[in-house]
Structure formats: structure tokens, C-alpha cells
């Protein structure tokens, strides 16, 4: 391949912009993607009181404010060296489980699901929730809207505000819930479990029941053998709110688990000349490029990763779904001992297993005898210093790290947001999708954009981690360059 150097001054920019470089034989040599990155958040935060962070950071993102709210509250707990009382932790996790249920529902029905339900080769204009309804029936649309409404009502009940929750503060929560609210939440949880089972049923029927789709899920084009990251509870079961971060090798060995505060011993960031984005990788393995395998420090943090890094789910129905997932896709264990699913399109299925877990967890938490306790806050008394808070965001492990002076005024801030973890795997998946559709300089136009979009959509990426998003349906542009770096084709949709 001819080497193409891109001047850092003209680094790739734009929304969903992908550059594919061909070698002299017309085969795909490299594929780069770029997403806009927002700047200046650390500078924006420094000088503010750390207790503002739970409400300020949930403004970073209009998609998962609840995730930033929780990570920030946990980091602020750590800064003040305060351990919230058990009822406060239960309430936070209850809010968070309702959020996971709602967010995963939206992704499956509005974003990821349409690729399967409507079909990967359907026009982009039909691959949306309306297409899903057209195929599966109107009542599904009603259920999705109901799921979202009921989930949002619970988030508001505990979070105190309609869209950006405000109730988690250093040391716990500002308010508890009443018995009436608890009963309402339990009712929602029981309904949500049924909805979760219904959604897994749809996946069964539409995807697993279709030989061509199943083949696509299992195809090499959508398979990567990387390391996996996800948070686990003391029994090594998936947990979204709290626990240790577990790292699983591509051959099924648990490399280790670490406390969130130790993240810098495990994660480093690689810089490439063609982008402002930084690519996190496992420090102990090292950066070997955008490649698979046990020697490459590339890791993935998604619903699929969480299932792969854990030994199972902590609730019974989700555990049964987890077992079925592995029985179907990975009947044999890896050489390292654990069964792993490396098929990236299976992330959609993993997301539904998590959706069911979130629903079951809502009921578990809502029926805990302490959930209506008024003991929801330990007022911080220690001198603030430094702290790390980690939660699993729907789209990957989310870490907030704050440093303050003795008055609790922020002096430094570092965030690793969910999508960031997956920058390298996403680039690899895009390259592989392109490789399957470009040979000897001939571009298979039909389906190229769809296949490329599917390759990164399964990661549920949050572009820009902000409410701001550009016009139209998600714009996507693919530029194909020959070995001299000249653009030979541009394919685009919604640009």
C-alpha cells in the first residue's frame, strides 16, 4: 500500500464522515471515520464547586444525562470520602435501571432493530420505527411509546426533574420515595419485564427465525476478537451502577478486575495523526494498531462486552436469556475457559438481555424493604480531595475523575465517556464492512452505506456526547480514495 499522510491541520472532520483508502490493487487498505468532538469541557468545569457536577455534567449529553448524573454523583462521593447510606444507593440504582430499560428500548426499536426488522437493504427512509411498525404491527409502536413514558415517569419520580435528573448529590440523594410511588414503580417494573420478554420474542422471530439474518450475524464481516470491558458485582454478574471493572481476553480468560479509581493503571490513550479523537487501549497489553487478537490492546465496551466479561446475569429471567444467547451463538468455550460471543451484530441481542435484566432489577429494588427509607444522605464532613466515579452507560463504561482544592473547587476534570472506549473497534468494524463490498477497485454501491452504518450503529455510538446534532436523519458520507489519495467516489445519505 502507498503511504498516505494526512496533514494534521486538515484532519478529518464532520459528522459521520468516513474515508476509505484503497491499495494499488483496489482493495481496502484502511478506513477512517470522524465524528465531531466537543471541546473545552474540562476548562468549563475548573473553578466550579464539585457538588455542581451531577447537574452540570448531565448537560453534556441529551441522550444519557442519567449516566453522567450518576457517574458525577459517585465521583463527588469519592471526592468527599463519603459512603451514601444503603437506601440512597438503592434509589440511585432504581432510577438508573429505569433509565437503562428506556434507553435500550429506544435503541432497539428506533435505531438498531430496523436494520433487521425492515431489512439491511431497505432504503434508509424506511429503516426507522415506522418501518418496524409496518412490519410487526401498530401495537408495537404503542408499546414502545408506553415503555418510554412509564420509564420517564419513574426517572422523574426519583430524579426530581422531567429530563435532567437532579436528586443525586455527594453523600446520597436529596429525597426518598413514598410508599405510593414505590408501588407505582413496582407496577412499572412488572410491566417492563413482560415488555422485555416480548422484545426478546420479536428478536427470536425476526432475526433468529430468518436463516439469512442469522448467517449475517455469524458472518466474518461482523466478527472481531478483541478484549472486552464491563462492570461486575461481587459475584461477577453484570451490574450497571456499581462494582469492579472486569477485563476479558479474546480467548476467554479474565485478565483481571479493577476498582474504578485504578483506571489509569489499565487504560491508556493512543493518538493518530488523522484525528483529534483519542483511542483508549489496555495499557498492560499495549497498542498494536487497529487489529484483533490477544496481543492487541484494543477493547470493546458495549452490551455484548458486558455479557462477555461477566459470569452471568443477577436476575433469573435475564440469566435464562443469557444462557440461551451463549448456547445459540457460542456453544463451545474459548481456550481460556469462558464462552464468548465475538459477533458484533449480536450486540443487539445482548442489549435485549440487558433490557430484561434492567426490568427485573427495577422490581428487585422496588421491593427492597429499605427502598422507602428516609435515610438517604450522609452529609459529607471530610476535606474534599480527588475522586473517581464509574457506571456502565448504555453505550459503554463511563468514568468521571475530579480533583478539587480543600474547599471543593474543581482544579481538574477527566472524563472517559462510553462511546470513546469503542473508537478503535468501530474503526475496525467499518473497515471490515468496507472490505466485504469493495474488491479490485469495484465498489458495490447497493448496500455499502447501509452495511457501513450497521457496522457502527451496533455500538450505539453517541456522536459528540451532546444534545446538538445535525440536520436530517443521521448524515453519513463515505469518500473512497485510490492509492494516490485522490477521491474516486463519494457516497452519501442525509447530507
Amino acid at each position, binding site marked *: 500500500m502507498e503511504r498516505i499522510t494526512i496533514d494534521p491541520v486538515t484532519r478529518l472532520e464532520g459528522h459521520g464522515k468516513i474515508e476509505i483508502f484503497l491499495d494499488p490493487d483496489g482493495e481496502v487498505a484502511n478506513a477512517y471515520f470522524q465524528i465531531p*468532538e466537543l471541546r473545552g469541557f474540562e476548562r468549563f468545569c475548573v473553578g466550579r464547586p464539585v457538588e455542581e457536577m451531577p447537574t452540570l455534567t448531565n448537560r453534556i449529553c*441529551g441522550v444519557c444525562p442519567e449516566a453522567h448524573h450518576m457517574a458525577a454523583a459517585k465521583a463527588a462521593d469519592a471526592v468527599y470520602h463519603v459512603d451514601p447510606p444503603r437506601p440512597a444507593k438503592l434509589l440511585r440504582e432504581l432510577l438508573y435501571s429505569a433509565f437503562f430499560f428506556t434507553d435500550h428500548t429506544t435503541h432497539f426499536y428506533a435505531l438498531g432493530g430496523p436494520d433487521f426488522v425492515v431489512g439491511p437493504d431497505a432504503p434508509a427512509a424506511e429503516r426507522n420505527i415506522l418501518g418496524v*411498525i409496518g412490519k410487526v404491527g401498530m401495537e408495537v409502536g404503542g408499546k414502545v411509546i408506553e415503555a418510554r413514558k412509564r420509564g420517564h415517569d419513574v426517572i422523574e419520580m426519583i430524579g426530581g426533574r422531567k429530563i435532567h435528573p437532579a436528586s443525586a448529590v455527594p453523600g446520597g440523594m436529596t429525597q426518598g420515595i413514598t410508599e405510593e410511588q414505590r408501588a407505582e414503580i413496582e407496577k412499572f417494573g412488572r410491566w417492563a419485564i413482560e415488555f422485555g420478554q416480548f422484545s426478546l420474542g420479536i428478536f427470536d422471530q425476526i432475526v433468529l427465525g430468518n436463516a439469512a439474518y442469522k448467517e449475517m450475524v455469524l458472518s466474518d464481516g461482523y466478527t472481531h476478537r478483541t478484549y472486552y470491558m464491563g462492570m461486575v458485582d461481587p459475584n461477577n454478574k453484570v451490574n450497571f451502577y456499581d462494582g469492579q471493572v472486569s477485563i476479558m481476553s479474546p480467548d476467554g480468560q479474565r485478565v483481571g478486575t479493577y476498582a474504578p479509581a485504578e483506571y489509569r493503571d489499565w487504560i491508556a490513550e493512543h493518538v493518530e495523526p488523522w484525528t483529534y479523537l483519542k483511542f483508549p487501549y489496555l495499557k498492560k497489553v499495549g497498542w498494536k494498531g487497529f487489529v484483533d487478537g490477544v496481543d492487541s490492546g484494543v477493547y470493546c465496551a458495549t452490551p455484548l462486552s458486558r455479557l462477555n466479561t461477566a459470569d452471568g446475569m443477577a436476575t433469573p429471567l435475564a440469566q435464562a436469556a443469557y444462557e440461551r444467547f451463549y448456547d445459540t451463538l457460542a456453544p463451545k468455550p474459548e481456550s481460556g475457559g469462558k464462552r464468548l460471543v465475538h459477533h458484533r451484530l449480536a450486540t443487539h441481542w445482548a442489549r435485549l438481555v440487558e433490557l430484561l435484566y434492567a426490568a427485573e432489577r427495577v422490581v428487585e429494588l422496588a421491593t427492597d424493604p429499605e427502598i422507602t427509607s428516609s435515610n438517604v444522605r450522609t452529609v459529607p464532613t471530610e476535606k474534599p480531595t480527588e475522586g473517581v466515579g464509574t457506571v456502565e452507560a448504555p453505550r459503554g463504561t463511563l468514568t468521571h475523575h475530579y480533583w478539587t482544592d480543600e474547599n471543593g473547587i474543581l482544579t481538574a476534570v477527566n472524563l472517559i465517556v462510553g462511546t470513546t472506549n469503542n473508537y478503535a473497534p468501530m474503526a475496525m468494524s467499518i473497515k471490515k464492512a468496507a472490505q466485504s463490498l469493495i474488491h479490485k477497485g469495484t465498489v458495490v454501491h447497493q448496500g455499502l452505506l447501509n452495511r457501513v452504518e450497521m457496522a457502527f450503529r451496533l455500538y450505539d455510538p453517541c456522536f459528540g456526547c451532546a444534545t446538538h446534532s445535525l440536520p436530517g436523519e443521521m448524515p453519513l458520507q463515505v469518500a473512497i480514495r485510490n492509492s494516490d489519495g485522490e477521491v474516486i467516489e463519494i457516497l452519501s445519505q442525509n447530507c
Partner: protein
Amino acid sequence: MADQAAPRRGPRTLVVGLGNPVLGDDGVGWRVADEVEGRLHAAREAGRRIPDVEVERLGVGGLRLMECLTGYEAAILVDAAEFPGRPSGEVRSCSFEALADHAAGHLDSAHDASLRTALALGRRLGADLPARIDTVTIQAHRTDEFSEELSPAVLAAVPAAAAAVLELLGTEAR
């Protein structure tokens, strides 16, 4: 006497300032919402006729925004926009249908259905959605850096954008 069985309805029109208030010009929708609220309050104090309106500030798009619009007869969305080649601070006003083919800020989301799809879904499901949705957009200069400040041209456009909203409301408050 009102029909007791009829669902209680809120104000007829919802004005929504859209955006992220800590992301530079992206927050202009919120500032315009503040200005509209202030002028409505002043007009009410002065004893002038005030339309039946509620003012909201949101940082959402797609399905979530559609859900927030249910129950209103009309809605006005105020948002930062990035139309190609337009001057910063330019205020434009048009119906959502007319805008949907052009560039605008939060009306769509990479993480959700687009508002257009969401509205179509809501209507198919029989949701009580506004019959009329208008937009007022303000051309942004900078939306990729965290800041609570608006750039000068965008800040200067806030009164004109508020006036455009009030004109759509048909109020004497402008």
C-alpha cells in the same frame, strides 16, 4: 359548564427553547425562551392580552421531543441552526414542515428517531399532537465548545428571535 369527563388540557401553545445551555451558541434557544417569558410577563403586568402559552427549555430531539409536544394545539420550536453559508445571528421563521427539508439543530438526533419520524409515529398512534408546529431558528456561529456565552452576533439576535416567536403567537406583547 365544562364536560367533567373531558381530559384537562394545559395551555394551547407550547414554546420550546431547544439546545444545550452550556454549549455556546447551541444554548440560544433557551435565551430566547427566557426573553419570551420576560416579555409575556411584562405584558401581563401591563394589563395587555396574553395568549394561552407555556414556555419550556429542553435539550432533546426526536421521540422525546414529540412526547413533550403532546397535549398542545400548537408549538413553536426555537433552536440554533447551521444553514450553510448564512450569516451568524440570522433569524428565520417557518413551519416545521418547510424546515424539515433544510438544516436545523436539534430537531433530529443521531440517537433517536428524527422528529419528523417521531411525529409521524405519534400521529399514527393517535397521540394528541399539535396541529401546527412552527420554528424560529437563529444561525449559530460556534457550537462545538463548552461555554455559557453566546457569540456577539447570536446574542444580538435574541430580541429579534423573541419578537418572531411573539409574532407567531399573535400577541400584543411584542
